[in-house]
Every structure is written in C-alpha cells, then in structure tokens.
C-alpha cells in the first residue's frame, strides 16, 4: 500500500535535509584538503580551481600521520577483540549460571553504564599513572576497555536472555558421549549451543 502523496513528499524532504546536513561537512572536508593555499586563504571558491595533493604529501611525509593512523587502528582493534571475548563470556555466565552475587554483578554493570564518563577521568588518570603506563597506547586500550566492556556485557545479557535455555537442555539430554557432559551442569555444551545464535550470519 502506498502512502498519500503529502506524506511521501514530507518524508523525502526530511531525508533530503538529513543528507544535506551530513554531506556538506564531508564535501567541505574533501574540497579543503584538495585546494591550494591560494584558493584557501586569498580568493574563495567552492570547488578547488587546481586540485592538488600537496597537503596529503606534507601531512604524510613531514608529520608522519600514517604512524598515528596505525596507532589508532591498533588501539581500536585490540579493544574490540578483547571486549568481544570478555563481555561474551561475562554476559553468558551472568545470564545462565547460578552463583552467589550474580544479580549484583549484573546491577553493578548497569551502574557503571549509567555513571557519567566525565566523572571517571581524574581517577582513571591516577590509576594509569600509578600503573606506570602514562603516555602509552596500552593505557588507552585499558581505558577504552573500562567503557566498552560494561556496555557490551549489558547488551549481550539481553541477547542471551532471548535464547531459550531449552536449546541447551536438549543438547545436554541428547549428547551421546557421556564424556561431553561436563561435571557442572552444562558448562561446555551450553556454551557450544547457545553461542552460535549470537554470531552474525
């Protein structure tokens, strides 16, 4: 069913506005990078009159920006990898296993998530200096982990809750080899059966 014309026109007008708001800064960024200094500072143009890559060459050769991009990339990759592993196991254990203080661990993760980030900067700085990690990339990875792990754990807890435990019970009941039944109720097999639905397909 098609909506009336007025609604469609309004929708597309709003979308066009959003595209404009996103695209103009990008356009400005790229054109400014390609302009010569004369075009930038003396007489203004929207499109560069003589597109040049001199700024790119300078920023790579003199300022060595590729090193910085590599650093950013390394920090982001390590943080992501560690976050996925740690928070997947943490969320799974909080949702599926019964042990003392389980609810409170979940609640503290929510508290960390609600706490304003700006409040943590001073104490985080003190901790990083006390660990002797000042001015290193490792300290940045650790700091990011303290933000990302609670968030991802909270998100994954919701997701693991939505997977029926019957899946694991079925796996435990129908496992043929008794050796694959672990001493604790379903430690290995429950992880093996409940983690695949969370993977991207």
């Amino acid at each position, binding site marked *: 069913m098609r909506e009336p014309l007025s609604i469609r026109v309004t929708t597309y007008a709003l979308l066009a506005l959003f595209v404009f708001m996103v695209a103009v800064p990008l356009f*400005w*960024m*790229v054109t*400014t*990078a390609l*302009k*010569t*200094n004369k075009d*930038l500072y003396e007489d203004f143009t929207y499109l560069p009159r003589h597109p040049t890559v*001199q*700024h*790119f060459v*300078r*920023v*790579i050769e003199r*300022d060595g*920006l*590729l*090193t*910085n*991009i590599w*650093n*950013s*990339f390394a*920090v982001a990759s390590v943080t992501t990898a560690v976050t996925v592993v740690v928070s997947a196991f943490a969320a799974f254990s909080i949702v599926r296993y019964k042990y003392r203080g389980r609810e409170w661990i979940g609640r503290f993760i929510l508290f960390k998530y609600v706490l304003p980030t700006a409040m943590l900067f001073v104490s985080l700085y003190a901790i990083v200096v006390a660990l002797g990690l000042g001015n290193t*990339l490792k300290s*940045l990875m650790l700091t990011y982990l303290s933000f990302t792990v609670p968030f991802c754990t909270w998100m994954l807890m*919701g*997701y693991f809750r*939505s997977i029926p435990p019957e899946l694991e019970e079925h796996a435990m009941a129908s496992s043929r080899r008794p050796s694959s039944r672990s001493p604790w109720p379903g430690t290995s097999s429950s992880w093996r059966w409940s983690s695949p639905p969370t993977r*991207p*397909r």
Partner: protein
Amino acid sequence: MTVPIKLSMMVVGDQYIWGQLMAGAVLATVPITILYFLGQRFVVQGLAAGSVKG
C-alpha cells in the same frame, strides 16, 4: 599518539593550517570507510535484529 591528538596538535595557537588538517582528516577516515564496506552486510542485519528486539 593517535589521530585525534595528532590533528589537534597541528593547530598552533590560533593558527589553523586548514589544508593539512583536512587532508589528515580525510586520510584518517579511509580505514574506517574500508572496514565499513567490508562489514556493511552485518551492520544492516544488526540494526534489523536490534530493532526487532528493542
């Protein structure tokens, strides 16, 4: 030093060397763009799954 720190250190006082700043910004977005196009399928899927689950 990571990219944001480097770019803000390229501003000296009130002197903005716009050409090089913007060239740096463009270069810094390249890896992100490549990663996004590699994983675009999963981003769309995740958005759909997230919107269903709430």
